[in-house]
């Protein structure tokens, strides 16, 4: 019964474990992603779906949703989810890698007014090739891949250390301490 899962947008409430967590990030609306995953939630009523929708106009009717959440809660939701679905932003990519969670991405497109450049296509192409990170070509592909990944997520992203390579941070340190 999908309507029973409807919530107003104050808080997501109890954390769902083993469901799908969807995030558009903190910067710009991304209604195409939100609506697609809300439709996916309608088709999969037994799977908990939680969506962080930002400043979008489309309000989910089947999935639980919230506009914004503190970064600590965001990380917790990524950690609890079985599948993380998000825009191809570096915040989502690094959070997924740090949590060791499979990430399914949809790139924001400039032509749709979803970002001010098309750089998310480049991000998805250059970084999305890592194991555990998956890139959807469009909304139909996104829904199909979400179903496949929920059944079998394959290998999670390889773990990375908490900080950048010391060779890089040492060069920044040298810059700081020069002069």
């Amino acid at each position: 019964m999908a309507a029973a899962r409807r919530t107003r947008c104050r808080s997501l409430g109890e954390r769902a474990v083993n469901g799908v967590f969807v995030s558009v990030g903190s910067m710009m609306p991304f209604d195409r992603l939100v609506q697609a995953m809300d439709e996916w939630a309608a088709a999969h009523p037994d799977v908990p779906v939680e969506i962080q929708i930002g400043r979008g106009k489309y309000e989910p009717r089947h999935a639980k949703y919230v506009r914004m959440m503190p970064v600590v809660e965001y990380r917790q939701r990524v950690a609890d989810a079985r599948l993380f679905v998000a825009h191809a932003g570096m915040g989502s990519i690094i959070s997924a890698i740090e949590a060791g969670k499979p990430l399914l991405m949809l790139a924001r497109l400039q032509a749709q007014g979803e970002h001010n450049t098309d750089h998310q296509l480049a991000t998805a192409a250059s970084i999305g090739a890592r194991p555990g990170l998956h890139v959807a070509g469009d909304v139909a592909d996104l829904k199909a891949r979400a179903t496949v990944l929920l059944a079998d997520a394959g290998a999670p992203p390889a773990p990375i250390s908490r900080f950048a390579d010391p060779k890089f941070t040492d060069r920044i340190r040298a810059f700081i301490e020069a002069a």
Partner: protein
Amino acid sequence: MARKRILAIASGGGHFVQLLRLRPAWDGHDVTYATVHAASAVDVAPAPLLTFRDVSRADWWRLPLTLWDALRILAKVRPQVIVTTGALPPLVVLTLARGLGIRTLWVDSIANSEVLSGSGRHAGKVATAVVTQWPQLAEPGVDHWGSVL
């Protein structure tokens, strides 16, 4: 090595996540962080965190607010060195810092793998140094030192 006052600044989302991955670079110095969400304070405690109002090309009319916040942050921190991972508000801070003898480093976001970001392009005119996280984007005046991943 004398302790220096460092301002580590980035917009929200991925920009700030990348900044956090660079933390060992200023270990042992007096760092103050600045970003758009006050909730990020939990990530940097006990170091202090200041906030500024966000602006992008889409809402350029907010620029005066960001300019005011940038002045406030510079006056409060009086940094000797600024490190940023973008985007537009930190570029405003670097522009103001230029005339104040502050060393500034622009680390272009790893999201920009095909061309340097628009803000990064401008940063070349005002920053002490600009680095890209992608070796193929290195050019005269834009070095590649490594990446956050």
